[in-house]
């Protein structure tokens, strides 16, 4: 107890982290931490966290790499816009979709993009609920990826309708046709699931941004920049009462997003599983799609996160440890996905059904067999590299494997969609599918859109959650065991010296 300092009224104790900048993390505090708990490298104080994360946004000139990548992405975005223009003028006949392959690149890319978005929600919601503090430095960035991925995903079914200006027909509203949408169709579930997902993701992201926007408002020097961040931060003060409700709402949002993200990809998988096409009609799809989404999403977070942390010198916050853990999740979800592939083969054989056997045969030896073997290589073989710790700490292998997974997950949807559709029950209606230049330009165009939005986000909003990093730093410096919960905090704080407490109380009384 603090009886050795009877006259002190300031319970400074061991927590010197908040002393005027740049106060380092006390050496003892760092030493007593178990090494796997360290998710902030280097010597940081609250002020240096603001500095390092805030300067990306507030510095007037972005790095040259940012300008180049943004310009490149903007070019690709224009490719997308031109494709869409041509598509709207001519109809979806410019794509490779045909009979029997009615779903081609459009649906492959829709599912691929939605899946990529899921890592963001997983990181921000599920890891928050599991109290994984390592999520704090990657969640903002991953949430932004979610939103932009959903934007890219949404374009495909919207344009696949052929008349995107009539897309509102999908929503239930009283109309002069006297008709209502068919709610028994998984495609209608998709409309509700994806639009809910987009809205909730945006809300979740924005709520997380409010306190950081206030920090930027207070750090900005230019008046109009200050005014813009001031408006966006809605007058956030950091009041304890506000924080209290804020955390209630944020945790509830996390709790809601977790089942939401699972439901979204489950419903996406229902688009196939509820249909009777051989190769689609399997009950394993929901879990296997969700695992695949997380797998693809983490790979994409690494694909963008590794170059960005280098470009902006954020290695202190996105540490090698973070990459290590992301690689482990990629490996784990990759194994689930691989298990799904094996089970699909097993089901085909075990069913004894001639059509299911034909699907297996077609995947292994059909005209698109190359895509199946490439898929097994990218998603089955490549992630196994992550069993090695050395590989998980090497940015080159991390990048290589994540790129392989990005491609592999795209191939998975290729194998499921056109490869199942091109040969169904009647050999007389078999056909082949090949994408046209517009399929490719649209796909590459959405990559441009995604990168463009992501780089705008990096320039104008803090890509790492500032207040959560401070909270993490506080927990590290405040007590040696950050995992033991907040309960022992009370004991510590109230153990301040009784003499001082009595003295101050007396002073307050005496004043009246």
């Amino acid at each position, binding site marked *: 107890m603090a009886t050795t300092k009877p006259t002190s009224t300031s319970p*400074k104790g061991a927590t010197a982290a908040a002393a005027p900048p740049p106060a380092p993390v006390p050496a003892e505090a760092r030493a007593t931490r178990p090494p796997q708990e360290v998710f902030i490298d280097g010597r940081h104080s609250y002020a240096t966290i603001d500095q390092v994360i805030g300067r990306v946004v507030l510095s007037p000139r972005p790095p040259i790499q940012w300008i180049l990548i943004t310009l490149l992405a903007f070019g690709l975005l224009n490719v997308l816009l031109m494709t869409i223009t041509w598509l709207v003028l001519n109809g979806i006949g410019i794509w490779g979709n045909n009979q029997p392959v009615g779903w081609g690149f459009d649906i492959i890319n829709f599912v691929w993009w939605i899946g990529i978005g899921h890592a963001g929600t997983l990181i921000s919601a599920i890891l928050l609920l599991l109290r994984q503090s390592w999520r704090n430095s990657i969640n903002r960035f991953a949430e932004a990826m979610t939103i932009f991925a959903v934007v890219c995903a949404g374009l495909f079914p919207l344009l696949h309708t052929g008349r995107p200006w009539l897309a509102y027909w999908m929503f239930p509203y009283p109309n002069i046709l006297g008709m209502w949408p068919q709610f028994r169709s998984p495609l209608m579930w998709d409309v509700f699931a994806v639009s809910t997902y987009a809205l909730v993701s945006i809300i979740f992201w924005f709520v997380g941004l409010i306190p950081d926007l206030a920090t930027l408002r207070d750090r900005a020097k230019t008046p109009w920049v200050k005014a813009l961040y001031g408006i966006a931060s809605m007058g956030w003060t*950091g009041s304890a009462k506000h924080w*209290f*409700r804020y955390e209630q709402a944020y945790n509830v949002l996390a709790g809601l997003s977790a089942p939401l993200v699972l439901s979204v990809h489950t419903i996406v998988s229902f688009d196939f599983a509820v249909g009777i096409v051989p190769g689609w009609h399997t009950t394993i799809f929901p879990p296997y799609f969700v695992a695949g989404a997380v797998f693809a999403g983490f790979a994409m977070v690494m694909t963008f996160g590794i170059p960005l942390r280098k470009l902006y010198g954020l290695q202190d916050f996105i540490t090698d440890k973070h990459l290590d853990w992301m690689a482990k999740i990629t490996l784990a979800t990759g194994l689930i996905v691989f298990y799904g592939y094996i089970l699909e083969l097993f089901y085909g054989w075990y069913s004894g059904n001639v059509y299911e056997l034909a699907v297996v045969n077609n995947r292994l030896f059909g005209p698109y067999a190359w895509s199946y073997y490439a898929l097994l290589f990218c998603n089955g073989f490549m992630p196994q590299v992550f069993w090695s710790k050395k590989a998980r700490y090497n940015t080159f292998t991390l990048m290589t494997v994540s790129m392989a997974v990005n491609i592999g997950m795209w191939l998975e949807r290729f194998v499921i969609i056109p490869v199942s559709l091109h040969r169904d029950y009647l050999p007389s209606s078999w056909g082949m599918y090949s994408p046209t230049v517009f399929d490719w330009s649209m796909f590459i165009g959405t990559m441009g859109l995604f990168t463009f939005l992501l780089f705008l986000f990096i320039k104008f909003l803090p890509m790492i959650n500032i207040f959560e990093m*401070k909270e993490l730093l506080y927990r590290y410096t405040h007590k040696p065991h950050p995992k033991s919960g907040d309960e022992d905090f009370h004991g510590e704080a109230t153990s301040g010296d009784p003499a001082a*407490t009595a003295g101050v*109380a007396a*002073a307050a009384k005496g*004043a009246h």
Partner: protein
Amino acid sequence: MAGGSAHAGDGGIHGARGAHAHGHGHSGHGHGPHGGEVLDPVFGIVGEFSDADALMHAARLAREAGYKRMDAYSPFPVHGLAEAIGFEDPKVPWLVFLGGLAGCAAGWSLQYFTAVLDYPWNVGGKPLLSWPQMIPIAFECTILLSALSAVGGMLALNGLPRPYQSIFNAKNFERASQDRFFLCIESADPKFDPEATAEFLRRAGAEDVSEVER
């Protein structure tokens, strides 16, 4: 909750500030303990702290000393700080629950009304009320309305967005979102007294104490 009175307060800001600018010299005026109709030109006395534990300690002392109307400001959520200033509010979770119920009811009845009552249509011989197929949309609507009520409720109860807040007048307050910690004892507190409260904050460990205009 604070919505109505907060707006009344906004209305009075400019007048009160003007009056205050002239009468700064005698801020120790004898205002009634309950504020009365005339808004106090002084919003409160604020103490600045360098770390979260010091703020927490001071907040506890302030409560023990009998202060009721106060607020603590920190750059990140400090667990236990709301309790330390005597704040408790279970409204947000309840709003979420009600929002979720409303969403579920809305999603379900939309489908029931359209598929069974208004547009009965035989699809593949399925019964009109093929309820398992109604679960996904009812679920999504539940999530959507719960999420909207969580955020809407949080913002409304916090009185946000609200670009002007008296506390922004506090000295050095731009660092409340960065690396400093503040405890403000508001003039609306029955025990508030400019000198004694300032002295109290100083003794509670504040590194700097200043008066905040409304």
